[in-house]
């Protein structure tokens, strides 16, 4: 089992509902976020290409944040979800430095925090909060090893990319283009 996510950039309107849903679901303090929206603009007016993306921790297969964590607070659980144990985290920020996606932040209470793929929901068979709320249904989540999961079906007939593949981290979030 290998959890992953696909996000359809052709449908994402960048409304940030995923961000609010994550904040209310996971009690992310105001002023911080575990997911966010980016916009890239290419070209010159009026020949312009714009891509809107909902981004978060890529739950990398080869995760530098886990490798560099001195206490083992950053770890990988079943399904490839990368988690941080708040009690074990000393807030040294090595993981923040090592992450090519800038996906982690220091929580006001001192430990490092980031997207958990809503594992508390996922283990009960629910979708992540961001997936379940997205008004354009542009976020697909599930088991990449299961060819009939939402995420596998979404990736099946579309072109897609991952972010910063050159970092060699094996990201598990894919963008349909």
């Amino acid at each position: 089992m290998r959890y992953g996510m696909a996000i359809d950039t052709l449908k994402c309107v960048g409304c940030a509902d995923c961000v609010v849903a994550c904040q209310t679901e996971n009690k992310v303090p105001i002023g911080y976020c575990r997911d966010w929206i980016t916009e890239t603009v290419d070209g010159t007016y009026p020949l312009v290409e714009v891509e809107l993306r909902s981004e978060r921790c890529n739950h990398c297969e080869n995760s530098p944040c886990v490798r560099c964590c001195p206490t083992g607070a950053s770890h990988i659980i079943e399904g490839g979800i990368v988690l941080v144990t708040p009690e074990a985290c000393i807030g040294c920020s090595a993981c923040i430095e090592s992450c090519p996606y800038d996906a982690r932040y220091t929580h006001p209470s001192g430990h490092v925090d980031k997207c958990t793929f809503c594992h508390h929901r996922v283990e009960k068979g629910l979708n992540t909060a961001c997936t379940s709320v997205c008004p354009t249904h542009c976020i697909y989540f599930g088991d990449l090893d299961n060819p009939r999961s939402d995420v596998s079906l979404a990736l099946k007939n579309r072109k897609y990319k991952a972010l910063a593949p050159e970092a060699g981290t094996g990201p598990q979030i894919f963008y349909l283009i």
Partner: protein
Amino acid sequence: MEKSRRNFIKVSALGVGGAMALGSSWNLVNASVFDSSKGEEVLSSEGKKLKRYPTYCEVCFWKCAGWVYLDEEGGIEKIIGNEKDTHCEGRLCPRGTGGVGMFSDPDRLKTPLIRVKKEDGDIFQEASWEEALDLIASKFSGIKEKYGAPSVALLKHGSPGKHFEHLFKAFGSDTIGEPAYAQCRGPREEGWAATFGGWVGSPEPTDIRDTKCLVLIGSHIGENMHNSQVQEMAQAIDKGSCIITVDPRMSTAATKSKYWLPIKPSTDIALLLAWMHVIIYDELYDAKHIEQNTHGFEELKKHVQTFTPEWAYGHTTIKPDVIRKTAHEMANAAPAVIVHPGRHVAWYGDDTQRGRAIAILNGLLGSWGKRGGFYLKESISVPKYPHPKYPHPKWDWKDLAKDYPMAKMGLTQEVIRASIPSEAGEHQVKAWLVAGTNLPKTIPNKAILKKAMEAVEFIAVVDTMPMDIVQHADVVLPECTYLERYDGIRSAANRTPSIALRMPARKPMYDSKPAWWIAKQLGERMGLGDYFNYNDYSEVIDWQLQQMGSSLEEMQHKGVKNFPRKSGSPYYQDGETIKLKTNTGKIELYSTELAALGFDPMPVFTKHPEPDPGFYRLIYGRAPMHTFSRTSNNANLSDLMDTNSLWMNPKTANVWGFSAGQEVYLKNQDGIISEFPIKIRVTERMRWDSVYMVHGFGHSNRKLTRAFGHGISDTDMITNVSIDPIMGGTGMRGNFVTFLTEKPEEAES
């Protein structure tokens, strides 16, 4: 400080203390488990019991039904969409999801406030409900006695407005206005009515999910998070529908479009006429449909004969071949095509005619009542709770709007104008009740608004938050949020009729009260108790639901109830004659109504003023996480976007030597300078002759601790207003701005 009868209160003793800090007590590891498909009572991961209550959202006006999850301590954990609701299909937009922040905002109005005069300026003093209500009732009764009931005006928006409308009609005043008409969608409604015999209404009956071609002209789906439309646009994208977006700015919808037409602002009617020209002269229309269902085709054909794509190119800067190609795309998709009527359409003063041009185009394409075009909506009327007959007011909003023959609702700006004493004014407004609408951020031409606010004898404001308008009030009444109150039943006009219930998830925080209670209390104090024959509004709702074959108990459990259609299919069959309530019973390509009133029966294109050198057209719009100016202080939503920025083309920035993130003040063509500075966003998504900002920022009330001074108010910069002669809409896109890099000595406020 300026000396006037009613000083603008900048710093005051607005409600103190009492914050329960519910929002900040959240524990990181306390993640709760629920989904829109799951049951009524759920446990959080810590074993906290959460109970859900039905509501419909009030963060915007789309009115999505949802579930409010409450913990045992009375904290609102989360709000999610109701899976049975056709407005949201189980998914709220960011504003609805962030409704939690509206409830938990420590800046909320907490207790009634009464203006007290002091030597160094007025202050607000906390008051009891008794004192505040008695004062309002005596002022309104006094004005009624002296000048007549119509001299007390209601300016309102949203759900609380309904309760006060009842109060005012019982009181004998129909001097009522809401900015949703003349400042927003009124022009399209009248343009549509002149063509199809009725309003488009809200939500628009656009069959986007099945459309083959969606045309958005100045309509920002995705930035205006009109929930079901955004969801359906995503479905249309999945199906590979052709989207055509006309916008000087590369809007979010434009980024999803097959064709983006970066039109020169103020020239939309030229493009619409050229599209009609191509459809008619390339014979792309369905002749049988035109013959059977339309009136005035030959007149229209003659009218648009010279409006070729080449002619339009000179005005719009859209290349002729693109105009032809897009017209052919529409015609190929017809009748499964939607030229969207738009929403905020008060732009240049000829907006009813632009709305008409859009309606005519749909009429030519045969999209009315067709799958993938416009479906025939159906709703259920909610029975009126019995009350004595309203008295007939001596005069009303219609008398104030008499210069605008097709005005069908109160024109807010005319009510405001009638508040300024003048010799000619037969009808004087002497007092206001303002409910749920922040006038300084809504009404253009602030000088008139300011004059009116100083002139009226009394202003009472009902709101949940210390909005800018509150600073002008004599009495402030704190309304509880939608999560803490009952309101009228939401009856929705959609493909299928439905109703939704809003009930309190918990008792109101602080000393805030629901609008129905405030209206009843005022009514009783003004001798109108017979009109409020109930102790609790739930009795009214229960009675209404019983008449509709439901009950309060059922709806408290379900939240939403869908009913089967009674009017048959939402679509006309092929060849079936379309039935309309126009004078001719047909789609009026030539409007007999407008002709009879002396207006152009078919839209004409007129050139609008252009900016002087060094000035740029000010365009404004929406962001998906904010509604008007009411959400800028919401902790969850301001966290997503806490200010607006000024979109500027890199060429423009280069000419001025500006860099991204630099702050500038704006000055408009009338010398009005923005109160606060705004950061520049240099982007290729913007035309070089215009600048753009999101509406709803630049709050001047310091009591809004998150929103105060963040960004600037576009409304402040709108002093040139082109009034639509047909229905009185206030065209607000005719303003030009230039940039000041230094803080001006005395910014206009």
